[in-house]
């Protein structure tokens, strides 16, 4: 019975090939648009999420304050207000997971005939914990390297590439500002940061080495910023408050006076970025859904025309024994076949289009099974929903009226 109905529906669609194809086209474009937009949206979202994950979670960054020198304000981080001992006492606060005092600077690196200018960060081993950064090979420097300010370095992927090429950098000696440093390890790749910087273009050295031997400072023991990781997202407000209290006390800042440091919640900023990406993804999906809806209305439109045009045929079928539900099924099947085939083509086009966009523009795309399934289910539902009314209309005809219809 069902098989006979299917072939009947197929016959009717074949008889009106052009119209069937045009109706299908609405569905194809709708589904392809949904898949493509979801792929782009989710790609962007994933990119943002990866950047956030690469930054580390539950992070604060504490920057030293600004100085004023002869009326010129020097900007954040210029004043040497944060010290290694500040970092140590922050580490003793409750709910703080890890603290990484950091002194960045720029230096020229040389290995053999290659050289490369990059950002060198003087920090502690907990920097790796805080940034959730693994080593690709080798091992990190330790607290004893900090204490004795040894000349050791961890290379970012980009730096390793530029200095060593295919060579293994471990246990090789590079020169930073003409002093020899032993390469202990190579950091795993992290990719771009949220603002598009290459996070792998960096070198880590012990903070004490950076202060005393590499950059030097007129204020011994100061750092530019302290990265602090809270134990959990819930603990962040509490940790922020206790850091501010602690530092004001340590820096002897009077009641009512401004802080000589600033503290930023990186996770909050990251969440905003993630939220933005999500909203964008949703908007793209919503816009694409409208085209799917338009495709569905196209199906209804054509099916209504088809029912009117074939009223006489419906009459003949009823006169020889078709029940209302047989007619309903026949027209519904036509709508479903159109939407399902249209949907299949749409999925292929959408997935192909997504990879074409990705190949052409380098934009990240993510085609998930769930987005395909969703588009498919929605398209089939749209076909059934919009096919139902015309089919119902056809099945409710009185045989005599249908037969007399000219």
């Amino acid at each position, binding site marked *: *019975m069902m*098989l006979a109905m299917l072939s*009947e529906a197929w*016959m009717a669609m074949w008889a009106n090939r052009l119209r069937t194809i045009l109706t299908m086209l609405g569905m194809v474009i709708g589904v392809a648009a949904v898949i493509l937009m979801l792929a782009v949206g989710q790609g962007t979202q994933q990119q943002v999420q990866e950047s956030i994950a690469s930054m580390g979670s539950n992070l604060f960054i504490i920057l030293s304050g600004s100085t004023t020198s002869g009326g010129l304000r020097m900007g954040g981080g210029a004043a040497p207000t944060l010290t290694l001992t500040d970092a140590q006492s922050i580490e003793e606060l409750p709910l703080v997971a890890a603290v990484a005092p950091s002194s960045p600077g720029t230096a020229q690196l040389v290995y053999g005939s290659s050289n490369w200018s990059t950002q060198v960060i003087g920090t502690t081993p907990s920097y790796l914990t805080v940034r959730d950064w693994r080593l690709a090979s080798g091992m990190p420097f330790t607290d004893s390297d900090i204490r004795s300010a040894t000349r050791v370095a961890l290379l970012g992927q980009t730096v390793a590439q530029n200095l060593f090429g295919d060579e293994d950098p471990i246990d090789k000696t590079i020169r930073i500002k003409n002093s020899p440093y032993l390469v202990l390890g190579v950091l795993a790749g992290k990719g771009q940061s949220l603002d598009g910087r290459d996070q792998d273009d960096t070198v880590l050295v012990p903070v004490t080495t950076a202060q005393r031997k590499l950059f030097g400072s007129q204020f011994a023991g100061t750092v530019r910023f302290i990265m602090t990781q809270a134990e959990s997202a819930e603990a962040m407000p509490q940790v922020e408050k206790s850091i501010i209290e602690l530092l004001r006390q340590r820096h002897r800042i009077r009641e009512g006076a401004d802080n000589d440091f600033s503290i930023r919640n990186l996770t909050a900023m990251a969440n905003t970025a993630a939220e933005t990406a999500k909203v964008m993804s949703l908007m793209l999906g919503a816009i694409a859904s409208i085209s799917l809806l338009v495709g569905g209305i196209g199906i209804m439109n054509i099916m209504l025309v088809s029912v009117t045009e074939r009223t006489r045929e419906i009459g003949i079928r009823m006169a*020889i*024994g*078709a*029940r209302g539900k047989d007619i309903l099924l026949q027209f519904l099947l036509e709508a479903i076949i159109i939407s399902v085939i249209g949907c299949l083509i749409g999925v292929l086009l959408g997935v192909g289009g997504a990879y074409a966009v990705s190949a052409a523009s380098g934009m990240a795309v993510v085609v998930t099974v769930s987005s395909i399934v969703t588009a498919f289910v929605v398209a089939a539902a749209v076909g059934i929903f919009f096919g139902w009314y015309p089919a119902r209309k056809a099945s409710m005809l*009185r045989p005599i009226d249908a*037969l007399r219809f000219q």
Partner: protein
Amino acid sequence: MTEAVIKIEQLCKDYFTDAGTVPVLHEVSLKVMPGEFVAIMGPSGSGKSTFMNILGCLDVASSGSYFLNGRDVGEQSRDELAQLRNQVIGFVFQGFNLLPRANLEDNVALPLIYRGIARDERIMQANIMLNKVGLGKYHHSRPNQISGGQQQRVAIARALVNQPKLLLADEPTGNLDTHTSKEIMELFNELNKRDGITIVLITHEHDIAAYAHRLVRLADGCVVYDGPVDGDPHLQAGHTHTGASA
């Protein structure tokens, strides 16, 4: 006593228009026994087409009763009526009413679909019927590739494919020339004689009606004659098919 195929009592049909109620059939009673071959005649507007549509369960009466093969048609649901049309009645139309894009085989097999018969069986039965009406070799042709007479034969094959008790024909020769009409009527005659199928047909031509064994004449929605074909006073008076002066 055998059961009547058609038993109609006091059947009325009114149409409702903006101008008011228009009675089309007025207290028509009719009984048709199995194996009968009945011609219904009447001028245009006499209600014969409406009567035929009610007989064929395509339309419903306003009042009165209609028993088809012992079943009260007035009591049947839409689906049950469809089943009656499918299995008890075979309907032949003036305009053939074949599906233009299906081949003859599929056209004839169409009623079997709604009875839930499998495809192989459908095609086999359809071909048996096509052979019976002499069109077996055209089974893959389309309706527009054969003549009107042949199309009507296909329609008859379709009407017969479910082995109905009753064959209803609404001016089956109305669109055909004299020669082809004769052939179709001989086919009806053969079906009635050999297979014992009850036939009720509408016509306005006397030589077509002459093939039947019994004549029912309608005028203004009432039965004005019911008896042997050659006993019809209108026929003897030499009236033409319009019968306008009756």
